[in-house]
């Protein structure tokens, strides 16, 4: 981890850190990288990954359209709307 990677991560995640925060984050990453040695010491060459802790397959419900919410209710939480649309700044100059 270095400052250039951190800069790319900030951009990727749409976050902007202060200089002091960057120092803290770099020390956090260093601590995490150090503890990864605990994992490397455990042989997992013949161990399958476990994504789900319970043996459930992808759950598929009946393909029935159910109306859950009204558009007006959903948009009541929006910072800015206009005639049923969410407003964002212009994306083309």
């Amino acid at each position, binding site marked *: *981890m270095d400052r250039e*990677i*951190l800069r790319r*991560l*900030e951009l*990727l*995640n*749409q*976050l*902007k*850190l202060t200089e002091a*925060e960057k120092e*803290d*984050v770099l020390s*956090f*990453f260093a*601590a*995490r990288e150090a*503890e*990864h040695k*605990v*994992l*490397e010491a*455990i042989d*997992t060459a013949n*161990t*399958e*990954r*476990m*994504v*789900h*802790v*319970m043996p*459930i397959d*992808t*759950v598929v*419900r009946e393909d029935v359209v159910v109306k859950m*919410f009204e558009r007006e*209710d*959903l948009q*009541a*939480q*929006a*910072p*800015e709307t206009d005639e049923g649309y*969410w407003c*964002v*700044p*212009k*994306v083309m100059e």
Partner: protein
Amino acid sequence: MYNVKIDCSVAKKVIADDMILTKGVATTAGSKMLEGFMSLFTSEALVRLEEKGYGLVGKAKVGEFGFDLLGETAVNGALTADGVLKLAAAEAVLANEADVALTMDINGSVRRAAAQTGLVSVKPTYGTVSRYGTIPVACSGETVSLMAKNVADVKDALAAVAGHDPKDGTSLPDSMYVTDAATPKRIAVLTDMLANVNADVKAKVDSAVAALKADGIEVVEVTNDKIAAAKVAWNILMSAELCNNVSRYDGVKFGYRTPNFTNLDELYMNSRTEGFGELLKTAILFGSETLSTDNYMKVYDKALRIRRVVVEEFKRLFQEFDAVLMPACSTLEYTVDAVNNDKYMAFNENFYTAPASISGLPAVVAGGVQLVGKAFSEDKLFTLAEKLEKEGK
């Protein structure tokens, strides 16, 4: 203590932490990002409690997205008493303002609070309680959890909320519920977890062991460095899942929107930068890095394999033992000063809670210690907890 307080006159009262969605009552997740957010529906777990006669008395403060040690990152300030951190939901139960707390156990804060206050909590088997209507953070291990003053109240509340919910894709089908209520006879104490606890916590463990032995339970000390590695793997998985789950907060459809932008990129960037706290931003960046091309196999994939290792190790232990006893925290209080000096303490202190989180196993905290059992063995854990409760009276 409260983010929202509600007048409630019913006999059985529940307080929900602010990760639990409540229709008509704001849910903030302890974050500026969701200040004032009004959900369009109520979480399934709370609906089920209300159907059984519980009444909501309010929303308890939580740390940002329930991710921290004990609520220290809450946007409206941590709850403290005499310079010591307190979890709001636990304090409400202690103060008799609620009989039960309905909470999200994401990174162990609920279990830490129960252990430190002497309350009883249960983190049920993953998939037992619907997560529909909870704010997702670390979906592969987080569970709706319950906390109360005694085992009977926790059992009563768990019975109300448990069971299949078709609205939650990870809710287990009823056919999978094979409860194990056999009388417990042998338990293991995981000594790897005792090396760095302070004298108060060690005394709690010793006291619990003595109480169980006095009640005829055989107690055997075991060591297992693979289970002890769960923390490192959970930090990776939890952060990666957090990174994905909070990507939805961009200031467009709901949540905080910065007033400082001139284009779409600035809207995204400034909304997220101003809306999230430092611990959360750090974890997002860490999670993102574990999922990068360079690290995916080395770090994230490895953590998924370690999860299986931990599950297999527990399975091996449960062939011999009815439960594994371990602490839920290293100390019985976290001072504000200590947390200010180590703001990433939650990533180390979860050493004690990560094994049950990463493996989806049930964990009951009682008498200041944590009992982890095999899937669906909550009743067995409650039997052990009742023995500790009896001894404590």
